[in-house]
C-alpha cells in the first residue's frame, strides 16, 4: 500500500504579517494525517471484520486526528495570545484526541494478517522475556485478555516495557489515555483497543470472544522490534 507521511508540515502565517513588518512570524504548525494500513481492511478476517477495520480506521481514527489538529491550532492561538485559561481548557481535548491518534497508530502496527505472520509468537529476546516475567506465552495472553475484559467502559489494555527497570508490564488505560500516563518510563509494545467500536459490530457485547480471537492477528514482530530497540 502507498505510504503517506505521518506528518506533513504546513506553515501558518499570522494575520499581523500584513500590518506590521516588525511582528512577522512564520509558524510551523505540524498537522497530522491518517497513516495508511499495511494491509487491506479485509485481511484480518475472520478475527476482525473488514467492516470494523474500515470504520475504525477511516472514521474513528480520522476523527481523532481531525480534532487533534483543531485542538493544536486553537492551543497555538491561545499560547500566542497568552490566554492561559484557554490553554488549560484545551488540555482535555488534546489528551483525548492526541491520545486517540497515538494509540490507534500503534494499534494498526500491532495487527497483521495471518499470511504475514499474524499470531506467530515472538522468538528472540521478547519471547524469552515473556517466559521469564509471566511464565509462559499462554499466561501472558490470559492476563491481558482478563484485564481487557474486566475494563469498565472504554479504554485500552497494554503490554508495555518499563525502560528503566527493563521489566514487562501489563496495564490498562481509560478512554484514550496513552500508556505513558500510567508511568513515564512505559513503552507500549502491544495495545488492544477495547472500546466497543473496536468489536461491537462483529462480537456484540461478548468482549471476551473478541479478545480471544484477536491473538490470531497480533503482530509480534513489531512488538519484538520495539522491545529490542529498548533492550539491545
Amino acid at each position, binding site marked *: 500500500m502507498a505510504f503517506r507521511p505521518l506528518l506533513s508540515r504546513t506553515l501558518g502565517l499570522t494575520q499581523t504579517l500584513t500590518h506590521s513588518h516588525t511582528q512577522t512570524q512564520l509558524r510551523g504548525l505540524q498537522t497530522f494525517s491518517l497513516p495508511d494500513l499495511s494491509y487491506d481492511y479485509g485481511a484480518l478476517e475472520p478475527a476482525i471484520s473488514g467492516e470494523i477495520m474500515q*470504520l475504525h480506521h477511516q*472514521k*474513528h481514527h480520522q*476523527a481523532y486526528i481531525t480534532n487533534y489538529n483543531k485542538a493544536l491550532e486553537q492551543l497555538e492561538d491561545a499560547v500566542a495570545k497568552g490566554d492561559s485559561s484557554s490553554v488549560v481548557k484545551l488540555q*482535555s481535548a488534546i489528551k*483525548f484526541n492526541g491520545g486517540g491518534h497515538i494509540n490507534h497508530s500503534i494499534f494498526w502496527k500491532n495487527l497483521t494478517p495471518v499470511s504475514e505472520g499474524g499470531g506467530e509468537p515472538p522468538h528472540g529476546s521478547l519471547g524469552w522475556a515473556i517466559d521469564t516475567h509471566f511464565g509462559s506465552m499462554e499466561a501472558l495472553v490470559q492476563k491481558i485478555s482478563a484485564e481487557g475484559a474486566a475494563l*469498565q*467502559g*472504554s*479504554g485500552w489494555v497494554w503490554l508495555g516495557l518499563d525502560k528503566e527497570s527493563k521489566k514487562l508490564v501489563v496495564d490498562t488505560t*481509560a*478512554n*484514550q489515555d496513552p500508556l505513558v500516563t500510567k508511568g513515564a518510563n512505559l513503552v507500549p509494545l502491544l495495545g488492544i483497543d477495547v*472500546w*466497543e*467500536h473496536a468489536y*461491537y*459490530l462483529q462480537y*456484540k*457485547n461478548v468482549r471476551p470472544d473478541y479478545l480471544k480471537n484477536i491473538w490470531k492477528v497480533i503482530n509480534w514482530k513489531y512488538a519484538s522490534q520495539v522491545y529490542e530497540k529498548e533492550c539491545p
Partner: protein
Amino acid sequence: MGSSCYSPSPSSSHLLVTDFFSRGFKSSKLPFLQKRRFDRSQRASKICGYYGLRTPPYKLDALEPYMSLKTLEMHWGGHHRNYVEVLNKQLEKNDILYGFTMDELVKVTYNNGNPLPEFNNAAQVWNHDFFWESMQPGGGDMPKLGVLQQIEKDFGSFTNFREKFVEAALTLFGSGWVWLVLKKEERRLAVIKTSNGICPLVWDDIPIISLDMWEHAYYLDYKNDKGKYVNVFMNHLVSWNAAMARMARAEAFVNLGEPKIPIA
C-alpha cells in the same frame, strides 16, 4: 425499582419512627420492633437482596426505526440483563448490602466517591431502567406545561436547552451518559454528563431525562454517527411524559417557586 418488595411508607412517618428509637425509648409494648435492627435504610418487611430485570414500558420493536429491535434486544437483553445478573452474583457474597431499593443501593455503593465493586453494576442497572423509561414510541417533540416553563426559565428557551444537551452528548469523552437533572440545592434544571456508570443520584440531583452515550447504545444503528443518534433521540424518542411525571414527583422535594400543588 427492582424486586425488593416493600410498600414505601411516606417519609414523614418514617422520620417519626426513627426519632422514636434514637431517643432510646424502650418499651415493653414494642418487643417485636426492638428485636429488629432499625436503621433508616431498612424498610423492607421481607429482606430481599436480589433484583430483577425490568422490561421497558413498550415492546422491544416499538422504537423502530429510530432504535432498532436488534439494538433493544442486545442492549436490554444483553447488556442490561448482564448488569443485573452480575450484581445479583456480587450481592450473594455480600452480607451487608441487602434490603435496599435500587436508588439506595446506588448511593450506598458509591460510598461518597470511593465506589465499592458493586457500584458499577448497581448504577448501570438503575441507569438503564431510567433510560428505557426516558423514551417512548412517538416521543420527541416538545415538553408542555410545567416542564417547558421550567426549561425556559433555566435555559432561556427550549432551543437553547436542546443545543446544550446535544453539545454535551457530542463532547463526552469515552463512555457515559447525558442527563437533564433538577439540582436540589440550586433549585434549577441543568444538563450534565457523567462517565461510565455514574448517576446523578450520587450527588443528590434528581434526574429528569437521560441519554445513553455508550457506544453499544447506538453503534448497531448509527455506527460512529453520534450526531444522528442524538438528534433522532431528541426528535423522535425522548419521552416528555416521563419527564413531566418525574418533575411532578421532584417538586415534592424541591421548592421550585411559590408553594403550590404541582400540576404536571
